[in-house]
């Protein structure tokens, strides 16, 4: 049965220019309270440091601003509009109670330097969340300072470096599987480690023989994503950990895919020495169009001396405070204490779920991915038949024959009312389609998705051009990215 593009619809396509194009002198959306202290003469106070002109900053009214951004918003896809099956991104529902509690006055307006005596509320949130994340990961301690996943990776590798340094044997290399996220090698380079690629075997897992051959006392750590970016759990994980530990190396886990594990298995129990979490993936804080994230790093006891300063501590009188004197610390990685607003949301998520809810979330996420796998197997090529956890990776092998690639299928999916899956990643699968439904999707929504994907596969056979030209239903069609990069226009300028 073919319903055609069921969810496809045109936006209410308001034409909306740039805010600068709506600006004119004298319009205003602000009002200041009357000044209750004497006026000052800026020229006298600031001398030549006084600014006289604010250039082309806009002047618009409040209703214009509301309409401007509301109209812009209608050109976005979002989780609130439908399934967002971006593999490795864990686009789950962002509960609104999280937003409400993050805006409670004393939490939203707390100053990072207010005395500890009147910061106990914030510190208690920090402590409770830290304890939850330590328990969930099976680790011993945690730093909440890193601002995002990649920042957590950097913090983690700095601790790895400090650890080996303290052992009196600094090391040079980080091993990274070829299926890894691009931030892993970029991070290793940033903290001055050489990157050595590690092959995957034919089942999509770390090649144990290759690891054994490559492991030596120059290797500081292996950065492993588990489940990996193919959605496959590294079944030899204990062996991997043993091989590393036998030669004094550390096992770093990229926690991007922790949504497959929470409540079912703990990385600390299977040999991981340190790992980062993405609160904006696993713990439901909103992606917000690309941030803010939060990338706490959980560690085993042997790495504790190297945690970024300051570290949360309980004082003799039972109150909470920060401990700044940490002689072996890798130092500070961010001003203040991290993206606290995200901690509030993550804790609210954990509270709303409790132990049962967290476990069921994981079970549902894995069940959903397997449901999609079984729905699309046969229609799309499945390069690895190894069991799937929270995400499944297909390839465009069958569709390439008609000249249609993963990106084309992804763009056509937009016409069916879905956000594309992750395209062309991981790199070890040519033409990858990486699909992660998360626990948030109902059977009904996934059935629509499977149906859409099957319908596109039929279109590829019958009318590939329709797919190649997609999307057809959006405000703009495919954009010229080459032109954008060749002669970059990165800001608006007034017409001369």
């Amino acid at each position, binding site marked *: 049965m073919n319903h055609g593009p069921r969810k496809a619809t045109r936006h209410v396509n308001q034409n909306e220019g740039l805010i600068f194009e709506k600006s004119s002198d004298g319009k205003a959306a*602000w009002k200041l309270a009357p000044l209750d202290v004497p006026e000052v003469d800026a020229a006298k*106070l600031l*001398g030549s440091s006084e*600014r006289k002109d*604010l250039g*082309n900053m*806009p*002047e*618009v009214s409040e209703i214009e*601003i509301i309409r401007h*951004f509301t109209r812009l*918003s*209608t050109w976005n896809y*979002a989780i609130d*509009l439908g399934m967002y099956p*971006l593999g490795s*991104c864990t686009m789950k529902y962002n509960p609104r109670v999280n937003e409400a*509690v993050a805006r409670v006055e*004393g939490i*939203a307006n707390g*100053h*990072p330097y*207010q*005395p500890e*005596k009147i*910061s*106990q509320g914030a510190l208690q*949130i920090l402590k409770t969340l830290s304890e939850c994340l330590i328990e969930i990961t099976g680790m011993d301690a945690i730093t909440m300072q890193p*601002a995002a996943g*990649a920042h957590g990776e950097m913090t983690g590798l700095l601790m790895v470096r400090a650890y080996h340094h303290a052992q009196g044997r600094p090391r040079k290399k980080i091993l990274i599987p070829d299926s890894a996220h*691009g931030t892993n*090698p*970029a991070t290793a*380079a940033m*903290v*001055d480690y050489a990157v050595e690629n590690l092959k995957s075997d034919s089942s999509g897992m770390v090649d144990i023989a290759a690891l054994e051959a490559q492991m030596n006392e120059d290797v500081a750590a292996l950065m492993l994503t588990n489940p990996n970016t193919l959605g496959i759990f590294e079944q030899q994980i204990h062996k991997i950990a043993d091989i590393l530990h036998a030669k004094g190396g550390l096992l770093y886990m990229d926690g991007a895919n922790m949504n497959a594990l929470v409540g079912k298995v703990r990385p600390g129990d299977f040999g991981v020495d340190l790992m980062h979490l993405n609160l904006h993936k696993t713990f439901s804080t909103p992606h*917000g169009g690309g*941030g803010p994230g939060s990338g706490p790093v959980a560690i085993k006891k042997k790495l504790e001396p190297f945690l970024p300063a300051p570290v949360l501590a309980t004082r003799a009188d039972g109150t909470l405070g920060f401990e700044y004197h940490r002689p072996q610390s890798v130092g500070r990685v*961010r*001003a*203040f204490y991290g*993206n*606290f*607003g995200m901690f509030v949301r993550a804790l609210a998520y*954990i509270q709303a779920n409790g*132990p049962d809810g967290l476990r069921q979330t994981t079970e549902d996420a894995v*069940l959903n991915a*397997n*449901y999609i796998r079984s729905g699309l197997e046969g229609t799309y090529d499945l390069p690895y038949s190894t069991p799937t956890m929270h995400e499944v990776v297909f390839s465009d092998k069958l569709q390439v024959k008609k000249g249609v690639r993963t990106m084309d299928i992804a763009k056509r999916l937009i016409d069916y009312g879905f956000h594309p899956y992750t395209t062309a*990643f991981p790199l070890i699968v040519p033409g990858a389609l990486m699909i992660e439904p998360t626990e948030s999707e109902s059977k009904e929504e996934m059935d629509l998705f499977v149906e859409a994907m099957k319908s596109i596969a039929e279109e590829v056979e019958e009318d590939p051009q329709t797919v190649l030209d997609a999307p057809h239903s959006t*405000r*703009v069609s495919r*954009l*010229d*990215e080459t*032109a954008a990069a060749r002669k*970059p*226009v990165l*800001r*608006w300028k007034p017409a001369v």
Partner: protein
Amino acid sequence: MLKAIGLRSVDELFEPIPAEYRLSRDLKVPRQMAESEIVDYFRQRSRENGEGYISFLGAGAYSHYRPVIIDSLISRGEFLTAYTPYQAEISQGTLQSIFEFQTMICELTGMEVANASMYDGSTAAAEAVMMAVRLTGRRSVAVARSLHPEYREVLATYATHQGMPLSIAGFAENGRLNLADLEKSITPETACVLIQSPNFFGTIEDVAAIAEIAHRHGAMLVVSIAEAVSLGIVEPPRAADVIAMEAQSFGVPLGFGGPYCGVIATREKFVRQMPGRLVGQTIDKQGRRGFVLTLATREQHIRREKATSNICTNQALVALMVNIFMTVYGKVGLRELAKQNLAKTAYAAGEFAKHNRVLFAGAPRFNEFVVQTSEDSSAINNRLLGHEIVGGLPLKRFYPELGNAALWCCTELTTRTAIDTAAALVPHSEGLAQPANDENVAEVAR
């Protein structure tokens, strides 16, 4: 669903995980709570967190009024629950708003290009320094001691592990960078000079003079701006090569330190060494204007270990708050807002100077000032707390050489009554008292 995939139980899905590692107990986390309980829990924490106190704290995190439409607009699910705008056709809202953000940051900083945001001001400063290292091929950095101490700590963390030596240049009597000290701290290996203006003490630096020194030695000048509202009335550091900014002042809640919004702005010729996401204008197949993420060949998902930075997620939603704030105040409002900050601070500094020493007179300041007292700053603050007032930030931890000194901040939200009350509660420091000499400022400011 299980039936559809040919399984009997959910447990079978987890069989790939070796049995000995599977968790057979409940996680020890708080029990499941109802929404009403969650709200109660956080309201209780809020009451333990200085709710309702009057605060004179600044130091890199500023309390400015946040127009209500910021939250109305960013709460729209289309902004809140969207991913990074890689799929341009269904992300034009986010992309166009970032393009506007980049434009306004350029207008305000006097730079030619700005990125879509960084984690915060401290990491933006560190990344800007690394950018200068790549551009100059030199490895060391001269840093002003009047740069936010925590920014200095972050830079030290980034620099240590890349073998980038740091030298520190002190501040002069008037709170500005000690130029003779700066000259001494620069070597032929200095990639850049990193300063903050207004600096950590609120003092506005003589950026042109500092730029002249840096450039004479072939080094770049990186200027950190922690108090964005200053840009409404303080001349931006146009002589800088890179500006690393913290835009929290523009409509972002204090939120106990984050999330905030860093930004890097620079000259067009340096753009390919700039880290972070960038939005550019282009056209679609029908020739219509549209926006895309561009110059991605600098970034980690393409370049892997050869990327300019490992940065991936940035602060898009916070940048949207900043964007809306800048749009609300605009060309005229930003100046008026900044002017109120200037007036409140001038008044407060005058009140404190009646009985205590306000340091660094003789150079212009924006909305912060340092008060030296004979009594310990923390003891003073403990007394103020009894009146539900949070006094200035004690500086002993960061600048022991200043003795009993605290950094006070006033914004448009600080009332005269609050200033008068606080100034009266800070005891007279007999030996230190000296008249306010703000009259002299204009001539010293060149």
